[in-house]
Protein backbone atom coordinates (compact mmCIF):
# COMPACT_ATOMS: atom_id res chain seq x y z
CA UNK A 1 0.00 0.00 0.00
CA UNK A 2 1.31 3.42 -0.90
CA UNK A 3 2.47 5.43 2.07
CA UNK A 4 0.09 8.27 2.74
CA UNK A 5 1.70 11.65 2.24
CA UNK A 6 1.94 13.63 5.45
CA UNK A 7 -0.10 16.81 5.31
CA UNK A 8 2.03 19.91 5.31
CA UNK A 9 0.59 23.22 6.36
CA UNK A 10 2.06 26.34 4.93
CA UNK A 11 2.51 29.49 6.97
CA UNK A 12 0.18 32.38 6.27
CA UNK A 13 2.17 35.17 4.66
CA UNK A 14 3.40 37.71 7.24
CA UNK A 15 1.95 40.45 5.05
CA UNK A 16 -1.53 39.00 5.33
CA UNK A 17 -4.19 39.51 7.96
CA UNK A 18 -6.26 37.05 9.91
CA UNK A 19 -9.71 37.58 11.37
CA UNK A 20 -10.61 36.18 14.76
CA UNK A 21 -14.27 35.76 15.73
CA UNK A 22 -14.77 37.21 19.23
CA UNK A 23 -17.63 36.38 21.59
CA UNK A 24 -19.69 39.49 22.56
CA UNK A 25 -18.62 39.03 26.18
CA UNK A 26 -14.99 39.64 25.21
CA UNK A 27 -15.63 42.80 23.20
CA UNK A 28 -14.65 46.19 24.61
CA UNK A 29 -17.43 48.68 23.96
CA UNK A 30 -17.68 52.26 25.06
CA UNK A 31 -19.82 51.95 28.19
CA UNK A 32 -22.04 54.86 27.18
CA UNK A 33 -22.19 54.91 23.37
CA UNK A 34 -21.81 51.10 23.02
CA UNK A 35 -19.39 51.66 20.13
CA UNK A 36 -16.90 48.86 19.64
CA UNK A 37 -13.47 49.98 20.87
CA UNK A 38 -11.50 46.76 20.80
CA UNK A 39 -11.37 43.29 22.27
CA UNK A 40 -10.19 41.98 25.61
CA UNK A 41 -6.96 39.94 25.54
CA UNK A 42 -9.06 36.99 26.71
CA UNK A 43 -10.62 36.87 23.22
CA UNK A 44 -7.41 35.12 22.13
CA UNK A 45 -7.29 32.55 24.90
CA UNK A 46 -7.36 28.87 24.06
CA UNK A 47 -10.48 27.17 25.33
CA UNK A 48 -8.91 24.70 27.70
CA UNK A 49 -12.17 22.82 28.27
CA UNK A 50 -12.14 21.93 24.60
CA UNK A 51 -8.42 21.15 24.66
CA UNK A 52 -7.80 23.60 21.85
CA UNK A 53 -4.24 23.66 20.63
CA UNK A 54 -4.51 26.66 18.37
CA UNK A 55 -6.57 29.83 18.07
CA UNK A 56 -8.96 29.67 15.13
CA UNK A 57 -8.91 32.48 12.59
CA UNK A 58 -9.46 33.16 8.89
CA UNK A 59 -6.94 34.50 6.43
CA UNK A 60 -8.65 37.59 5.05
CA UNK A 61 -6.68 37.79 1.81
CA UNK A 62 -8.31 34.51 0.78
CA UNK A 63 -11.50 36.44 0.07
CA UNK A 64 -10.04 39.51 -1.60
CA UNK A 65 -6.55 40.86 -2.20
CA UNK A 66 -7.19 44.28 -0.75
CA UNK A 67 -10.90 45.05 -0.38
CA UNK A 68 -11.48 45.12 3.36
CA UNK A 69 -15.24 45.06 3.05
CA UNK A 70 -15.22 41.95 0.87
CA UNK A 71 -12.71 40.34 3.21
CA UNK A 72 -14.91 40.83 6.28
CA UNK A 73 -17.98 39.63 4.40
CA UNK A 74 -16.09 36.55 3.19
CA UNK A 75 -14.98 35.65 6.69
CA UNK A 76 -18.49 36.15 8.02
CA UNK A 77 -19.95 33.91 5.31
CA UNK A 78 -17.37 31.22 6.08
CA UNK A 79 -18.15 31.43 9.81
CA UNK A 80 -21.89 31.17 9.17
CA UNK A 81 -21.35 27.80 7.54
CA UNK A 82 -19.94 26.54 10.82
CA UNK A 83 -21.76 28.31 13.63
CA UNK A 84 -24.52 30.66 14.63
CA UNK A 85 -23.06 34.13 14.64
CA UNK A 86 -24.25 36.66 17.23
CA UNK A 87 -25.02 40.17 16.02
CA UNK A 88 -23.05 41.67 18.90
CA UNK A 89 -19.95 39.59 18.16
CA UNK A 90 -16.99 41.12 16.35
CA UNK A 91 -14.25 40.14 13.98
CA UNK A 92 -10.81 41.29 15.06
CA UNK A 93 -8.36 41.78 12.19
CA UNK A 94 -4.78 40.91 13.14
CA UNK A 95 -1.61 41.38 11.15
CA UNK A 96 -0.10 37.90 10.74
CA UNK A 97 3.48 39.19 10.79
CA UNK A 98 2.91 41.06 14.03
CA UNK A 99 1.35 37.97 15.59
CA UNK A 100 4.56 36.03 14.91
CA UNK A 101 6.62 38.98 16.15
CA UNK A 102 4.58 39.14 19.36
CA UNK A 103 5.57 35.53 19.94
CA UNK A 104 9.24 36.38 19.52
CA UNK A 105 8.89 39.18 22.06
CA UNK A 106 7.45 36.65 24.49
CA UNK A 107 10.10 34.01 23.66
CA UNK A 108 7.52 31.82 21.96
CA UNK A 109 7.51 30.34 18.51
CA UNK A 110 4.12 31.44 17.29
CA UNK A 111 3.07 30.44 13.78
CA UNK A 112 0.01 31.33 11.76
CA UNK A 113 -0.68 28.30 9.60
CA UNK A 114 -3.14 27.54 6.88
CA UNK A 115 -5.78 24.96 7.81
CA UNK A 116 -8.16 25.65 4.98
CA UNK A 117 -10.12 23.11 3.01
CA UNK A 118 -12.59 23.25 0.15
CA UNK A 119 -15.44 23.44 2.62
CA UNK A 120 -13.68 25.91 4.89
CA UNK A 121 -11.78 28.45 2.79
CA UNK A 122 -9.29 30.73 4.53
CA UNK A 123 -9.36 28.82 7.79
CA UNK A 124 -6.09 29.06 9.70
CA UNK A 125 -4.72 28.67 13.19
CA UNK A 126 -2.47 30.66 15.47
CA UNK A 127 -0.23 27.94 16.85
CA UNK A 128 2.40 27.68 19.54
CA UNK A 129 0.47 29.36 22.34
CA UNK A 130 0.87 28.13 25.92
CA UNK A 131 -2.01 25.72 26.55
CA UNK A 132 -2.85 27.23 29.94
CA UNK A 133 -3.25 30.84 28.71
CA UNK A 134 -0.75 32.04 31.28
CA UNK A 135 1.17 34.33 28.96
CA UNK A 136 -0.82 37.53 29.48
CA UNK A 137 1.83 39.59 27.75
CA UNK A 138 1.24 37.69 24.53
CA UNK A 139 -2.54 38.06 24.80
CA UNK A 140 -2.18 41.79 25.50
CA UNK A 141 0.07 42.19 22.45
CA UNK A 142 -2.47 40.37 20.30
CA UNK A 143 -5.29 42.62 21.50
CA UNK A 144 -3.44 45.92 21.44
CA UNK A 145 -0.57 45.72 18.96
CA UNK A 146 -1.48 43.05 16.41
CA UNK A 147 -5.14 43.98 16.16
CA UNK A 148 -5.55 46.52 13.38
CA UNK A 149 -9.29 46.71 13.08
CA UNK A 150 -12.36 45.51 14.93
CA UNK A 151 -15.69 45.29 13.21
CA UNK A 152 -18.99 44.08 14.61
CA UNK A 153 -21.10 41.54 12.76
CA UNK A 154 -23.89 44.10 12.77
CA UNK A 155 -21.63 46.65 11.11
CA UNK A 156 -20.40 44.22 8.46
CA UNK A 157 -23.97 43.36 7.56
CA UNK A 158 -25.06 47.00 7.52
CA UNK A 159 -22.27 47.88 5.09
CA UNK A 160 -23.21 44.95 2.87
CA UNK A 161 -26.88 45.99 2.87
CA UNK A 162 -25.98 49.59 2.09
CA UNK A 163 -24.79 48.60 -1.37
Amino acid at each position, binding site marked *: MAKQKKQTRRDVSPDHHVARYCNP*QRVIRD*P*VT*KQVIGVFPQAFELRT*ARKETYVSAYCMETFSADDLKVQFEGVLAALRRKLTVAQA*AVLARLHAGLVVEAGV*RCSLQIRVRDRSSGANPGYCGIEGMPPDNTNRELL*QLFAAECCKDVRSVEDIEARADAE
Partner: protein
Amino acid sequence: MTDYGIAFADSWPNPWIVTGQLPLPQSTLTSGRFRANPAPNPSPKSSDQESTPGVQTTLDEQLFDNRAMTKIAISQLAMHLDEAWRRVTFEQLDALLASDHWEEDSAFVKRAPFLTFLRFVIFAGPTRVPSLGVGHSGNTLASWRNDNTQINAEFMANDKAAVSFIQQVGRSKEAIVWHGDVADLRLFLQRNGVLDCIL
Protein backbone atom coordinates in the same frame (compact mmCIF):
# COMPACT_ATOMS: atom_id res chain seq x y z
CA MET B 1 -1.85 45.55 52.95
CA THR B 2 -4.58 48.12 53.08
CA ASP B 3 -7.78 47.03 54.70
CA TYR B 4 -10.93 47.92 52.83
CA GLY B 5 -13.12 47.88 55.89
CA ILE B 6 -15.75 45.94 53.99
CA ALA B 7 -15.99 42.22 54.49
CA PHE B 8 -18.42 41.27 51.77
CA ALA B 9 -17.98 37.56 51.96
CA ASP B 10 -18.90 37.39 55.61
CA SER B 11 -21.63 39.95 55.83
CA TRP B 12 -23.51 39.77 52.57
CA PRO B 13 -26.70 37.87 52.32
CA ASN B 14 -26.20 35.20 49.74
CA PRO B 15 -29.33 33.75 48.26
CA TRP B 16 -27.34 32.17 45.43
CA ILE B 17 -25.42 29.67 47.47
CA VAL B 18 -28.04 27.08 46.82
CA THR B 19 -25.80 25.02 44.58
CA GLY B 20 -24.84 21.96 46.56
CA GLN B 21 -27.70 22.47 49.01
CA LEU B 22 -30.38 21.23 46.72
CA PRO B 23 -32.89 18.70 47.97
CA LEU B 24 -31.94 16.45 45.07
CA PRO B 25 -28.78 14.47 45.72
CA GLN B 26 -26.21 14.45 42.93
CA SER B 27 -26.86 10.82 42.13
CA THR B 28 -30.49 11.63 41.41
CA LEU B 29 -29.50 14.29 38.93
CA THR B 30 -27.59 11.78 36.89
CA SER B 31 -30.28 9.15 36.94
CA GLY B 32 -31.96 8.19 33.70
CA ARG B 33 -35.12 10.04 34.68
CA PHE B 34 -33.33 13.37 34.59
CA ARG B 35 -30.97 12.53 31.80
CA ALA B 36 -33.93 12.10 29.51
CA ASN B 37 -34.65 15.80 29.80
CA PRO B 38 -32.76 18.25 27.63
CA ALA B 39 -29.87 19.98 29.31
CA PRO B 40 -31.11 23.31 30.64
CA ASN B 41 -27.89 25.14 29.93
CA PRO B 42 -26.12 25.04 26.58
CA SER B 43 -22.89 26.14 28.19
CA PRO B 44 -21.17 23.25 29.95
CA LYS B 45 -18.78 25.41 31.94
CA SER B 46 -18.10 24.54 35.52
CA SER B 47 -17.95 28.28 36.10
CA ASP B 48 -21.68 28.43 35.72
CA GLN B 49 -22.22 26.42 38.84
CA GLU B 50 -21.37 29.10 41.33
CA SER B 51 -23.94 31.62 40.24
CA THR B 52 -26.55 29.32 38.83
CA PRO B 53 -29.25 28.28 41.20
CA GLY B 54 -29.26 24.55 40.73
CA VAL B 55 -32.17 23.12 38.82
CA GLN B 56 -33.35 25.60 36.21
CA THR B 57 -35.46 25.07 33.21
CA THR B 58 -34.43 27.77 30.81
CA LEU B 59 -31.40 29.78 29.90
CA ASP B 60 -33.45 32.95 30.31
CA GLU B 61 -34.13 32.10 33.95
CA GLN B 62 -30.48 31.44 34.61
CA LEU B 63 -29.49 34.68 32.97
CA PHE B 64 -32.12 36.54 34.95
CA ASP B 65 -30.73 35.13 38.20
CA ASN B 66 -27.17 35.94 37.17
CA ARG B 67 -28.07 39.53 36.31
CA ALA B 68 -29.94 39.80 39.62
CA MET B 69 -26.89 38.56 41.52
CA THR B 70 -24.64 41.22 40.01
CA LYS B 71 -27.16 44.03 40.41
CA ILE B 72 -27.98 43.20 44.01
CA ALA B 73 -24.26 43.14 44.76
CA ILE B 74 -23.93 46.61 43.26
CA SER B 75 -27.04 47.95 44.93
CA GLN B 76 -25.70 46.92 48.33
CA LEU B 77 -22.90 49.40 47.71
CA ALA B 78 -25.16 52.07 46.28
CA MET B 79 -24.09 54.65 48.85
CA HIS B 80 -20.51 54.46 47.52
CA LEU B 81 -21.36 54.58 43.84
CA ASP B 82 -22.49 57.38 41.61
CA GLU B 83 -25.99 56.94 40.19
CA ALA B 84 -24.78 57.29 36.60
CA TRP B 85 -22.01 54.75 37.27
CA ARG B 86 -24.59 52.24 38.48
CA ARG B 87 -26.95 52.86 35.59
CA VAL B 88 -24.27 52.43 32.93
CA THR B 89 -22.91 49.34 34.67
CA PHE B 90 -26.39 47.82 34.87
CA GLU B 91 -26.86 48.41 31.15
CA GLN B 92 -23.59 46.65 30.42
CA LEU B 93 -24.51 43.68 32.58
CA ASP B 94 -27.85 43.42 30.77
CA ALA B 95 -26.03 43.27 27.44
CA LEU B 96 -23.40 40.78 28.62
CA LEU B 97 -26.03 38.47 30.05
CA ALA B 98 -28.61 38.69 27.27
CA SER B 99 -29.94 35.49 25.77
CA ASP B 100 -29.89 36.84 22.22
CA HIS B 101 -26.12 37.39 22.49
CA TRP B 102 -25.47 34.06 24.16
CA GLU B 103 -23.01 31.70 22.52
CA GLU B 104 -21.52 28.32 23.20
CA ASP B 105 -18.46 29.78 24.91
CA SER B 106 -20.31 32.49 26.81
CA ALA B 107 -20.05 32.31 30.58
CA PHE B 108 -22.13 33.39 33.54
CA VAL B 109 -20.61 36.04 35.79
CA LYS B 110 -19.07 34.31 38.77
CA ARG B 111 -19.91 35.90 42.08
CA ALA B 112 -16.49 35.85 43.76
CA PRO B 113 -14.59 37.57 40.91
CA PHE B 114 -17.39 40.10 40.59
CA LEU B 115 -17.06 40.97 44.29
CA THR B 116 -13.31 41.37 43.77
CA PHE B 117 -14.11 43.88 41.03
CA LEU B 118 -16.45 45.77 43.35
CA ARG B 119 -13.81 45.81 46.07
CA PHE B 120 -11.46 47.47 43.62
CA VAL B 121 -14.10 49.99 42.66
CA ILE B 122 -14.73 50.92 46.29
CA PHE B 123 -11.08 50.96 47.26
CA ALA B 124 -9.46 52.56 44.21
CA GLY B 125 -12.39 54.81 43.41
CA PRO B 126 -12.17 54.88 39.61
CA THR B 127 -14.40 57.67 38.36
CA ARG B 128 -14.44 56.40 34.78
CA VAL B 129 -16.94 53.65 34.16
CA PRO B 130 -15.05 50.67 32.76
CA SER B 131 -16.09 48.63 29.76
CA LEU B 132 -17.09 45.30 31.22
CA GLY B 133 -16.70 41.78 29.91
CA VAL B 134 -16.78 38.17 31.05
CA GLY B 135 -13.89 35.75 30.68
CA HIS B 136 -14.20 32.13 29.59
CA SER B 137 -14.25 30.99 33.20
CA GLY B 138 -16.67 33.65 34.46
CA ASN B 139 -14.09 36.13 35.71
CA THR B 140 -15.05 39.79 35.46
CA LEU B 141 -13.17 41.73 32.81
CA ALA B 142 -12.85 45.51 32.87
CA SER B 143 -11.16 47.95 30.56
CA TRP B 144 -10.41 51.62 31.11
CA ARG B 145 -8.95 53.89 28.52
CA ASN B 146 -7.95 57.45 27.93
CA ASP B 147 -6.13 59.12 25.04
CA ASN B 148 -2.81 57.43 25.85
CA THR B 149 -3.49 54.16 27.56
CA GLN B 150 -5.86 51.25 27.68
CA ILE B 151 -5.81 49.15 30.81
CA ASN B 152 -7.28 45.66 30.68
CA ALA B 153 -8.05 43.98 33.97
CA GLU B 154 -9.27 40.54 34.93
CA PHE B 155 -10.76 40.15 38.39
CA MET B 156 -10.64 36.74 39.96
CA ALA B 157 -11.77 34.99 43.13
CA ASN B 158 -9.89 35.43 46.40
CA ASP B 159 -9.17 39.14 45.77
CA LYS B 160 -6.80 38.40 42.92
CA ALA B 161 -6.51 40.50 39.80
CA ALA B 162 -4.40 40.62 36.67
CA VAL B 163 -3.77 43.74 34.65
CA SER B 164 -2.08 44.42 31.35
CA PHE B 165 -1.49 47.48 29.24
CA ILE B 166 0.86 48.76 26.57
CA GLN B 167 3.43 51.37 27.52
CA GLN B 168 5.88 53.32 25.40
CA VAL B 169 9.40 52.47 26.59
CA GLY B 170 11.98 54.46 24.68
CA ARG B 171 11.27 53.92 21.00
CA SER B 172 9.34 50.72 21.42
CA LYS B 173 6.11 49.68 23.03
CA GLU B 174 6.05 47.09 25.75
CA ALA B 175 3.28 45.05 27.27
CA ILE B 176 3.23 45.57 31.03
CA VAL B 177 1.65 42.75 32.96
CA TRP B 178 0.84 42.52 36.64
CA HIS B 179 -0.81 39.85 38.76
CA GLY B 180 -1.51 40.09 42.45
CA ASP B 181 -3.82 41.10 45.26
CA VAL B 182 -6.45 43.60 44.20
CA ALA B 183 -5.55 45.80 47.18
CA ASP B 184 -2.20 46.52 45.52
CA LEU B 185 -3.58 47.29 42.08
CA ARG B 186 -4.10 51.00 42.62
CA LEU B 187 -0.52 51.41 43.77
CA PHE B 188 0.73 49.45 40.77
CA LEU B 189 -1.16 51.72 38.38
CA GLN B 190 0.12 54.79 40.23
CA ARG B 191 3.75 53.62 40.09
CA ASN B 192 3.47 53.05 36.35
CA GLY B 193 1.98 56.48 35.76
CA VAL B 194 -1.35 55.20 34.40
CA LEU B 195 -3.63 55.83 37.35
CA ASP B 196 -5.20 58.76 35.53
CA CYS B 197 -6.56 56.27 33.02
CA ILE B 198 -9.16 55.11 35.56
CA LEU B 199 -9.77 58.49 37.19
